[in-house]
Structure formats: structure tokens, C-alpha cells
């Protein structure tokens, strides 16, 4: 057991399994260099960067580096790339922006974030709409799909009104008849359409009036889309839209964005929505 000599060098004297001995020779030089280099690196790092926790704070490091500073620097870099476009957009009106292919493409790409943050919750990530929230990708517009109208809609918001027709105005059978006619796209052939005054808002051709925001009843695009579309139409006729006299009325309100977003942001959104596919 006390045998400390070995053909390979000094051993600690411990022997396992009769054959395994532990040598006492130095680790290789490269390994020792690596070891020392490592603790020196830790030391330098600890002095240079914020590293050590203190009671209420931490060491700041002599370089003054912080993650937030680095983030801000990177952000400034992105902003500087965007700046020339943003400056142009701020000065131009929406019509001029639409005519500029490059700016239009810039907005189609960068506007995605703006749209996602502010619009997508109701209108869907691609503007495809949700039940009760109109689609922005088709060519059916309640208030018009021209760029100026879109800009106005976003700036000031919209709130249409359709009085409830159930109860005193129409019997359930009449609502049934009208709803079926609308569902089949033949509302103008239904005498009740004129007789009950629907034409007043929806127009003699049933295509709606954009000045009022009344819906086009002749196409297959539904403002209040539902699984059972016929039932949805009946409900809308019976309870109206935003009718204060009916607690069961449909609520449909586009908020105004002028106090929440800057003018440039609203312009970008208008162009973005126009370019979703339905702009006129």
C-alpha cells in the first residue's frame, strides 16, 4: 500500500482494484493556462460589466454597459433606417402616399405591427373580420373604401344606427319574410322593403348608402356574420343596431383613434387598410 513509485510517476499511494493508482503529476501546462485564463476572465468580466449583487443594488461595472442601453442603441439604429420614410409620410397626404410604390410597400410591411397592436383584436390579424366586426379585405364598405373615407373612419370613429323593427313595427312573420329576401339577395322584390320604409336608409336598390353607413343588403357579405346567417339577419331586424331603446340591440362601434395615435400613424393605418385588398 505504501508503494509510491510507478513506471508512470509518483502516486498518492491509493490503489483501487489492485491495479488502479492515482498519479500525483501536474496537469498539462495547457490545462493550467486555461484554468488561470478562466479566473482572470471572470475577474475582468466582473469589473468591466455589471455583475455582483449588493444589498439594494449591484455593481455597475466600469464600462457602464446595461442591457437597456444596448436595446436603445439598436432601436435607434432601426429608427434611423425608418426615419427617411417616416419623414416623407408625415409630410405627404394619403393619396400621394398611395401613388408611391415604395412608400406603399414600406407601409404594407411596417404597418403590420401598428395594425396588430391596434386593429387586429377586432378585425383579425389579416383584416379578415370577426363576427360583429367588419372585414377590411373585401370591397364592401359601409362608409366607403376610398382612402380619404378610410382615413376619416380611423380618425373619428364610426357609430351607425338602425332602429329596432321588432315589436310595433313588424310582426315576426314580416321579419321572417324580409330576412329570407335579404338572405337570398332579393330584398328589392319584397314589397315589405318599400312598404315598411327600409328604403329610407338602404336605398331603393337595397345597396345601402355610404353617407349613412347603411349596409348593402344585396350582396353575400354580412356585417353580422354568423353560423346561422338567417337567424342573425332576423335578430338585426328585430333589435336594430345601436338603438338605445332596445337593450338587446346590436352594439357596433368603431372608436375614434385621433387621441390615441399620431396623425402619421393614422395615415399609415389608412394606407395599410386600403392595401389589404378592398381599397377603392
Amino acid at each position, binding site marked *: 500500500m505504501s508503494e509510491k513509485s510507478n513506471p508512470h510517476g509518483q502516486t498518492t499511494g491509493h490503489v483501487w482494484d489492485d491495479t488502479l493508482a492515482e498519479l500525483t503529476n501536474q496537469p498539462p501546462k495547457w490545462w493550467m493556462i486555461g484554468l488561470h485564463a478562466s479566473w482572470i476572465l471572470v475577474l475582468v468580466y466582473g469589473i468591466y460589466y455589471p455583475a455582483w449583487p449588493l444589498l439594494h443594488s449591484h455593481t455597475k461595472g466600469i464600462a457602464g454597459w446595461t442591457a437597456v442601453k444596448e436595446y436603445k442603441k439598436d432601436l435607434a439604429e432601426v429608427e434611423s433606417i425608418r426615419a427617411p420614410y417616416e419623414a416623407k409620410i408625415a409630410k405627404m397626404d394619403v393619396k400621394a402616399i398611395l401613388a408611391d410604390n415604395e412608400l406603399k410597400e414600406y407601409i404594407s410591411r411596417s404597418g403590420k405591427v401598428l395594425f396588430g397592436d391596434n386593429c387586429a383584436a377586432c378585425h383579425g390579424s*389579416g383584416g379578415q373580420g370577426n363576427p360583429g366586426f367588419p372585414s377590411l379585405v373585401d370591397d364592401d364598405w359601409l362608409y366607403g373604401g376610398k382612402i380619404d373615407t378610410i382615413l376619416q373612419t380611423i380618425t373619428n370613429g364610426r357609430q351607425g344606427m338602425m332602429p329596432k323593427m321588432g315589436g310595433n313595427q313588424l310582426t315576426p312573420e314580416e321579419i321572417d319574410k324580409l330576412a329570407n329576401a335579404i338572405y337570398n339577395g332579393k330584398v328589392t322584390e319584397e314589397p315589405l322593403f318599400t312598404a315598411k320604409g327600409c328604403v329610407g336608409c338602404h336605398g331603393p336598390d337595397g345597396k345601402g348608402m355610404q353617407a349613412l353607413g347603411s349596409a348593402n343588403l344585396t350582396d353575400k357579405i354580412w356585417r353580422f356574420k354568423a353560423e346561422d346567417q338567417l337567424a342573425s339577419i332576423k335578430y338585426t331586424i328585430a333589435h336594430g343596431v345601436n338603438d338605445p331603446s332596445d337593450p338587446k340591440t346590436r352594439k357596433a362601434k368603431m372608436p375614434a383613434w385621433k387621441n390615441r395615435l399620431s396623425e402619421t400613424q393614422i395615415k399609415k393605418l389608412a394606407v395599410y387598410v386600403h392595401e389589404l385588398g378592398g381599397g377603392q
Partner: protein
Amino acid sequence: MSENAGSTAPKYEDDIYEEAANWHVNTGDEKIHAKRVTGRWRRLKWITHSVWLIFFLGPYLRWHGRQAVLFDIPNRQFHIFDITVLPQDVWMLSLVLLFFAMLLAAVTSIAGRVYCGFFCFQTAWTDVFTWLEEKIEGPPAKRRKLEEGPWTAEKARKLGLKWAIWLAISVLTGLSFVAWFTDAFQLWHDFFTGQASSVAYGVVGLFTVGTFTLAGKLREQACFWLCPYARIQGVMYDKETILPTYDYNRGEPRGRLKKGKVPEGQGDCIDCKQCVAVCPTGIDIRNGQQEGCITCALCIDACDAVMEKIGKPKGLIRYASLDEMEGKQRLPLYRRPRPLIYLTILTLALSGIIYGLTHLGTIELKVLHERAPLFVELSDGSIQNKYRIKILNKTDKDFHVKLTAEGIPGMTLKGAEKPLYARKGNDTSYTVYIKAPSSAIKEERTPILFKVVGIEDPNKKATYESMFFAPK
């Protein structure tokens, strides 16, 4: 235990210790100071090493007002004379790698580690470094003496000078490498005025340390313990591979010269150990093929010189295959399947590269179909799909293209009425819509073929097949 092992134990022990005594592994505990020889292979070695001059001088070559070969990583463009390769064509890089891998394999199976001995940067740089060492410190014996001796003013002067020159070469190596990736002349200016990028300084630093350590300090140890090629090349040999080989039939039994003559009954090898003295990796070629041999053939030069002096025919050490040594017939190349397979892959890879370079094209089209929503029903009952178009202009001039699409009768393409502008060396994107009457749509998905044709040059064409989605 020893009783049971009986009489076989001593014999086994004898054998294994005899083997161990001859088996000397060069682990770097002794520094190899190879003697420098002159001769045919030595001359060839200088010529093959000079391939690396391209590495040093290449970046300064100009072509039509810009760097002839430039790997422009920030702009993602590779310029090779008139050819500009964009990342889209980088599949060729894999063929280039395959080509060189197969070239290595083919050459190795025919003539051994030709790459190691004649072309490898490790060999070339070490060769230059040791050449300088000899110029400054003298031949191997003097070098060893200086190394072991105490620090004197002369030792400091000699080593200082050597290290300074090595360092200069190392920095130049780093600078030359970086010069392939940025404007070479500008780099020199920026580098010494402190304006180069931190990446440039970092890479030059790494190369400086790397070159100095690998060629100055590690040398053959890099081939022994670091290099993966050195290991894989060894397994590409077969018995037909020609290698620097000691002709044991002729050389053995070896023995010393007696009175300037080879005694009767003795082989041609006079055990002068010149082959060992000149070996840059410190091996004895007479022990046969071994992993330390980089097949640099300097032992052939050394042995030939000795054979000439003692009046024996040259070629005691020569390029020969194991089969030849065993007196077997040498197989012609076309009957050796390994080189043939390598050469076939080599040819295929090369054809692919040539095809790629000659069919780079000038324009590429990509069409991405909008997913949210997949399609839109319009008020007149027709269906609209939205697409993002990317036009890649691979030339160095801006141009315009006309975009068209076909696939459904009566469909209209919106957003591409005017010619589309394609920015040089980049992709430009546009948004377009296809509107189709629902009566004409037969399926849920209809293939649509997009086409772009250059307006200035109608030969610039590209197509892309996308889909038109419709409700069920």
C-alpha cells in the same frame, strides 16, 4: 496468477516490450529540428507551396473598377470576376465543398496525402517558418544548442528577430484573409489608422495567434493531434496507393558502411539516418507507412543524395505501392473501383458547378400567397386572393419588368398595371391581387402561373407557380 499463466507470460512480455521500445510516439516532448535538403521533391514542394501566393495577392486584383474576388458578407453578395453569386445560388457552395472533398479522396487513394505534403497551409507555413529559423539560427545542431543554452544577448537577438518576422507573417496572413471579405486597399488603410471594424481586428488577431502558434510552435503536432484530415486521409489508402516507401527488400539487412563500402551480404541501407534527419514530422520511414507521414517526399531527396554518393542506384526510398513492394502486378487506374467512384462523383460535382455558374440567370421570382385570410368573397360574388411578389434582380443594373398571371379564365390581376421596378442586386417586393369570377373557379385550389418579363430586355424572364384559393 503467475503460476497459472505458465511459460507463455515471459514470451508475451518480451514481445510487447520489444514493440514498445521501437514504438516512439512523438508527443511534442522533443522538438523536431529537421535538416533541410535539396533535390527534386524539395523544388516541387516550393512550387506547390507557391499556390498560397494567390491567398496573399488575390484580394488586390481589380476587375472593372472593383475587387475581382470579394465575399461581401454584409451585402450578401459574392463577386468572382464577372459573376455575382447571391445567397439564392449558394447551393453551388455545397457542390464546391463536395468537389474538394472528393478531390482530396481521389488524390489520396491514388498518391496518398499529396495535400498534406505539398499543399496544406500547415505544411507550407511551417516550411517557411523553419526556413527562416535556419537562416537566422543556423542548421539543426546549432538550433538545438541555442535552444538548450542559457539566455545570452545573442540568443535574445536571434530569437527576437525570428519571432518578429514570424509575427509579421502571421499578421499578414490575418490581413490577407480579411482582405477577401472587404475592400483590400481600404482594409490596409483602416487597419493601421484604427478605423477597421472590430470583426476585422478580431479575425486578424485570431489568425495572428493561430498562425504563430500553429506554424511556429505546434508544427507537426498539429498534424498528429489536431488535424482531422490527417486522420481520415489515412483510411483512404489501399494497397495500390503509391506513397514514399522504403524498399525493405533492397535495403535490409541494414548496416553501416565499412571503409566507404557496403559490406557483403548487407542491404543498400547504410543506416545513415538521413531520412529521419530531414523528416519534418520526425518519423522513420523505414518503419513503414505510419500516421505521422505527411508524404512530403523529402526523405526521398535525402536518400537519393546518399545513394548517389555511395554509388548505388537511387530509389531506395521512392514513391511505390505496397503491392509493388510485395512484388505484385500494379493495377491500372481504370481497374481500381475506389478512384473510379471518387472521380465519378468529382465529375458530377464539377458539372453541377459549371451548370450553376453558366445558368445563374438574371432574375428570379417568388410569390407568397397571403394566408390570413386565404381568400376574400367580394360583393359581386367573385373571389379575390392576395399575393406578395418578390422580384430578385441578380444583375448590377436596375430594370423594369412586366408581371402577368394566368390560370383561371376571366381573372384579373390588380397591382401590376404599371411596369414594376427591380432594384439591382436585391429583391423588390410588391403586393398584387387576383380577382376571379366564382363561376370560373372549378376547384378549391387552382394553380396560377406568375410570369415576369423584362421591359428593357425581354430575355430576362422568370416564372413562379402559386395557388388560387376559393371557398369549397
